[in-house]
Every structure is written in structure tokens, then in C-alpha cells.
């Protein structure tokens, strides 16, 4: 069973991950990633 603090920690990590992705998106756009996802 997951504790409340673990749940919050995972959500916090996801939030940071999403924001890292937003920063990386601009150079990724410039470099044109593969056409297929």
C-alpha cells in the first residue's frame, strides 16, 4: 500500500518531468524528431 507522501512524491516527480519536457521541446522541434511516434 502506497503512503500519502509517496503518492505526492510521484505526482511531484511527474510535474517536474513534464516541465523538463517542455524545456526540451524547443530544441527537439528545431532538430525535428522522427516522424513516427
Amino acid at each position, binding site marked *: 500500500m502506497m503512503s500519502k507522501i509517496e503518492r505526492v512524491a*510521484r505526482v511531484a516527480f*511527474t510535474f517536474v518531468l513534464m516541465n523538463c519536457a517542455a524545456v526540451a521541446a524547443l530544441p527537439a*522541434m528545431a532538430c525535428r524528431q522522427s516522424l513516427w511516434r
Partner: protein
Amino acid sequence: MEIVFWLSVVFVGYVYAGYPALLAVWSRLAPKPFRERPQTPPVTIVIAARNEARQLAARVANLRALDYPQADVQIILVLDGSDDGTDATLERLGDQIDVVRLPPGGKARALNAGVAAARHDILVFADARQPFASDALRALVAPLADPAVGGVCGELVIDSESGDGGDSAIGEGIGGYWRYEKWLRRHESLIGSTLGATGAIYALRRDLWRPLPDDTILDDVLAPMRAVLNSSRIVFAAGARAFDHAAPAATELSRKIRTLAGNYQILRCEPRLLNPRANPVWLQYMSHKVGRLFVPYALVALVVSSAALAPASPVYAVAFACQVVFYALAAYGAYLVWRDRRQAGSTSVAAADPRVVMKGSNT
């Protein structure tokens, strides 16, 4: 520095809390209902796939078992340069599907070819991996009884949404994030239109389809948003469900980078989205899609400004301390994800399968 701090607070607060609050109030005070009616119009389901031989037989079986008059369902499978023995699978499927074979050219080009081969006026887009619920197609087309509705976005249900984290290393966080996104989508639909759709399950009237540029990253945002720019509504149908697994963290990160890069690309491709006179959902688009792109820079400004101001005032010192706690929690979350993956790797190969990806989170 104080101005930087407070502007950052207001901006981040608006994007993640103020905008949802605005949606909640707006959808309560001035909802825009749409008419739904049970109906079964002829539909063309378009699936673009590359090297999905392992999935196709089950996927077609899922679509052919839907609670819908099968004579009115055309399934088009566009093979974009598949070289994994897909042909052998297709032979077994016989005449259940129409197949379009293309040299490798990307998903957007595959979708264009699929739509060109469609016989019916309602297009339904799906992916090779995410199965539909048996009543999904009926729920998806019901809102199209309203002529103002040009498209319908279905609901992608991620296994980790149940809250137990599923068997995915990052399931808990993604589950919460995805529930939040769907809440936004539902309320955006209530006041006008969703800002795109879920590639795993959405419908669009054929006359609203415009061929996509070959290098389109987010076909499931560009196509619906072009319909919105054409004064049609794209609404959310929660009953139209498709199912998927959450992804491992590394896969999820690369997917998010790609998705957000797609959001930049769409602004270049359709600059009318930034024009409040041309875009009927301009405020929502700026708040949800564009705002997200700038949040990380505001977060950095928040850390730097609060650290600089902390010695001068307890308010900023507390703000800085809160951020330290938050990022420490995030680091702990990263550790938990790493630990889960390691445990999953030792107990189950399937749980750590890098091919399991979450699709449809296009924000």
C-alpha cells in the same frame, strides 16, 4: 526581483489552478450543451500503423466485435513501410479490412492516404494498440447528431488511473496527471470545444478534414483544431473509451518532449490559433496549451527570485523553503520510480516492456 517573483507566482498559479477554476465557474454559469442522439451512421475507421503485426489481428477482432452494425463500418489500415511480416497477418484477416500500403513517410501522410480511401462521411481515428470498449463507437457518434458538432473526442483510460499505480513504474503520477487533463478536457468541451483530441479514439466529419502536412507531429490536435477554426465544435464523449497502459518514465519523457514540440509546430503551421478573432477558443488555447510551454521558465524565475529575496523577508524565505521541499519530494518520487522499475524488472519482464507507451496525452 519582487516583480519577477509575483509575476511568476501569478502565471504558474493561473495555468495550473486559476484556469481550472475559471473553467469550473464558466461551465456552470454559461454551459454550451450539445444534442446527443443514439444513432449508427456509416463510419470509416482509419488506423495508421508501422510494424504492428503482433497487434493487428487482435485489434481488428476488437473493432469487428463492437456493438455497432458491422455492415456500416469500414476499417482502413494504412501500412507505413511495415517490414515485420504484417502481410501474413493481413492474409488471415481477409476482407475484413481495406489495406493501403505506403513506403515509409510518417503518420500524417499515412492518415492522409487513409482518409482519401474512406467511403463514409464520419471518420474515426484509432491506433493499432489501444482497444475500444464494446459500446465506444456508439458513444462516439452520438454527439454528431448535433450539426454544430464537427468532431468528438473519446476517452483514453490509462490502467494506472485506478490509483494503485498499475504495473507501471510511473503509473501513479501519470494517472493523476491524466485525470487532471481529462477534467480540463471535459470542461473545455462543456463551454465550447476541446483543444484537440485523443489519437487513440476520435471522430471527425469528413468535410472538415484537411490534408495534414507530412511532418505533422500532433495530427490529433491539428486536425480537430482546424475544425474548430472552421467554427465547428469538438466535444468530449466520456463514454467512448479506449484503453492503454502507462509508460515507463523514460518513454513518457520522450513522448512528452515530442508532444510539446508538436505544440510549437502547430503554432507555426496554424498561426490563426494565436489570433483571438480567428480562434473561437483562444483564451482556452492560450491558457492550456501555450501557457504550459512557458511554465518551466516561470518556475526557474520563481526559484531564483525567492532565493534572492529570502534574506530580506520571511515571506520569500518561506516561499523558497516550500520550493525546496517540493523539489526534494520530486527527487524522492524519481527514486521511487527507479526503485519500482528495478523491482518490476526482477519480477516481470512485461512490466518493464519499453514498448508499452501511453498515447493521447497531447498537452
